[in-house]
């Protein structure tokens, strides 16, 4: 079948194809190489790195940079904290966002334009850092997990994507559920959510990545080191590396060991990125579909 239907490719098309592939390959290289470079530097010997000899293949493979990072005993606890903040935070996000999005998606919701406006307004105006800090302080949330997970409980933009998705579910479904005696919560739980798996997966990913990467709220709201998420520690390592500029730098990190600042930093980047990167493949299918549906028909 397929043989008979095959259309003969014209020369022009062939050339186009070749050029297309080359361009795409270059594009792939450009996007993948930085990640690859970070990886090979993180496992190379510092001497070769500082001499600029590592660019295609790792040289003098060693894991000492990773060892150095993990020798910092705070890292493990911080990892645990990050996982807790991410799961608790994402759960709160999803519950509250969908409970906010559903009423706003219903055309028969009284005062809908007003509420939509009030909610959307926060996308463009915010109180600013200091007022926010004062609110968190007065609510007694400082130095607790709630200061991390509650202030960003609903991301307006994500919520609106969700609302738009809910709007596209035929109203007749909900009406028939009503006729069968279901109330609003039951409709949300039994009709809407089961139909919204793609958007839910997308939101989980959006929110989880946001929590995973967030460091600033933890920085200002948390005081005890034991509550710090991993990003704070890692960021400190990456940024504060340029330390010796103004001081007697003899025997600095860079001198005595095979680990130079760059290995160390790149190992840190790998460590912080890989776990969340591993989540993507599992959600990717829903992810692409979900965003598209939300956006295109919005």
């Amino acid at each position, binding site marked *: 079948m397929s043989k008979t239907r095959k259309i003969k490719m014209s020369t022009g098309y062939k050339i186009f194809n070749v050029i297309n592939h080359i361009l795409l390959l270059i594009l792939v290289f450009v996007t993948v190489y930085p990640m690859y470079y970070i990886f090979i530097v993180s496992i190379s010997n510092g*001497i070769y790195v*500082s*001499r*600029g*000899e590592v660019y295609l293949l790792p040289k003098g493979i060693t894991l*000492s940079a990773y*060892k*150095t990072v993990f*020798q*910092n*005993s*705070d890292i493990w606890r911080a990892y645990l904290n990050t996982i807790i903040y991410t799961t608790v935070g994402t759960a709160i996000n999803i519950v509250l966002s969908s409970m906010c999005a559903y009423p706003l998606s219903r055309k028969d919701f*009284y*005062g809908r334009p007003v509420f939509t406006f009030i909610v959307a307004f926060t996308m463009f105006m915010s109180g600013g*850092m*200091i007022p926010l*800090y*004062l609110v968190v*302080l*007065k*609510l*007694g949330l400082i130095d607790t997990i709630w200061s991390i997970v509650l202030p960003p409980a609903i991301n307006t933009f994500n919520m609106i994507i969700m609302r738009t998705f809910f709007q596209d579910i035929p109203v007749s479904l909900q009406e028939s559920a009503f006729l069968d005696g279901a109330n609003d919560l039951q409709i949300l739980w039994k009709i809407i959510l089961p139909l919204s798996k793609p958007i839910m997966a997308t939101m989980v990913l959006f929110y989880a990545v946001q929590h995973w990467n967030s*460091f*600033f709220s933890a*920085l*200002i709201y948390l*005081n*005890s*080191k034991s509550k710090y998420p991993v990003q*704070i*520690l890692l*960021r*400190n*390592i*990456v*940024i*504060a*590396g*340029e*330390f*010796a*500029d*103004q*001081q*007697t*730098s*003899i*025997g*600095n*990190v*860079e*001198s*005595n*060991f095979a*680990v130079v600042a*760059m290995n*160390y930093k790149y190992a840190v980047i790998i460590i912080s990125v890989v776990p969340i990167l591993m989540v993507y493949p599992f959600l990717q299918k829903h992810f692409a579909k979900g965003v598209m549906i939300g956006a295109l028909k919005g």
Partner: protein
Amino acid sequence: MKKSYAKTVVLFLCLVMALSLVTGCAKPAGNSSGADTGNQSATAPTQAADNTEKSSGKISEKERVLKVMFPEHPNQPVKNFAPAQQEIFKKTNIKLDFEVVPSSNYEDKKKILLATNNLPDIIRISKSDVNDYGTTGIFLPLMDYVKNDMVYFKEKWENIPDLIKVTLDGELYGFPVIARNEAKNGVGPVIRVDLLKKHNLKTPDTFDELLDVLAKLKEIYPNSIPWSMRSGTVKNIQKIAYMLGSGYGDDGIYYDYDVDGGRYVFGPATKEFKNVLSYLNKAYKMGVLDPDYAVSTKQQWEENLTSGKSFFFLDNSGFGLNYTNNLRKTDPEATFQIIPIPANQDGVRRAVFYATVFTGEMYAVNAKIKDPDTVIKFIDWMYSEEGSNITNFGVEGETFYIDENGQPQFIADYVAKFKDAQPSPYYAIYSDLGITKLNFSLWACNTMTQFQIEKLTGTWSDLYDEYWTIVGNDKAYVEPVMDPPLTAEEAERVKDILASLNTMLEQEYDKFIIGVKDISEYDAVIEKAIEMGALELEQIYNNALARLQQ
């Protein structure tokens, strides 16, 4: 119609409910924080100076917790209640509770706490915070305590007259961290001495000879970049300007010992500054200076030096020893070593040490603190020999002993445990004990402890001794001068002038170095700089200095 009316009512009720919930929640929280501040402010400085001479003989009668906030450097993770803090608790009954903030974002957090007046008991601040927040009343004014109640700190205060520059309108708002036995070094010329020897080149004694030597090396190694730089034009002008008879400071304004017996000068607006630019221009034209000097990053700079592509740098001279170690992995002869400061075109040798005695860090006390007298006593004790030994060497008998000269020395058995620790033995020890400058120490060690530990672990080498001897014997270095405190209006004016002035100037430097403009055209730039307020800047600083000296 009826239905929608009912809905409006329901909606209204919902709103009322939600609002009452919010206010209901807010109340207890508001109360508790009110009680909090009440507690802290119920501390009218009772003149309890005599009462504190208590039976326990410790600084605090009762067990007391003090919250201290300071930045944490990634090389030295801070543990709460490490041995040094346990020892402090034993001696003084004061339990230090550290709130550490990653150093990369310490400024952000500090600014928020200062702006919301939500400080811990003791907080690390910088000199500029004193200018910005000193008059707002969030820091405890300290001058009276220094004069009347303090012993150890007062002694230091009187011995280091320069410290008066951390005051604001005669009032002290933070205790400066004072360095103890710090080895001094600074920006200096570092060259591949092994290559000089190999090719029979004389160690350059003047800056002109330096260029000649580098040019010869360039002839021998045509692919090399003899002189590498990092971090941009301005940073490098900052480093070299003073040696060449001008100066730059941080923003152009600097203190020159040799002008009118010492005064502030705005470097780029002087005739002397032309020497700096023409010298760099000469280096550029001769092919000695890295053609990419203006955009070269630290990483590229390091790459050039450790791969043997570059032979000279003028930067933190301590780096030389690090790069030597790296170079020797492939070339066992290779050696970067500092050379004495060469003479400039006027035959003068000058250079500045890094600030060592006071590096700009201070600890302020919360104005709302309870029983400030005890806290001040405690802080005073931190400046004592005993306090400093504990906060820099740990526990006497366990981690250090006092030698015959009365100086603390680390115990070798203790240090040996950290021989292979990462990122380096001394950082690991500092972190383990909770000591030195990067922890909470007021009379703080940095190099003194580091040298001791390196000598004990065997990472010390002869090159280090040679380095410190050369720096130590070089008479060219002078102490840096701490800027005098400016009033709020002065600081504002300085900021204004500098912003426009430096924007104008920074565009010019490269034109002269690369040679797009001839150096004679720089006179016009000087004129323009003076027009834009360069002399006013000098005046502001010199007046501030004179005010202080009165």
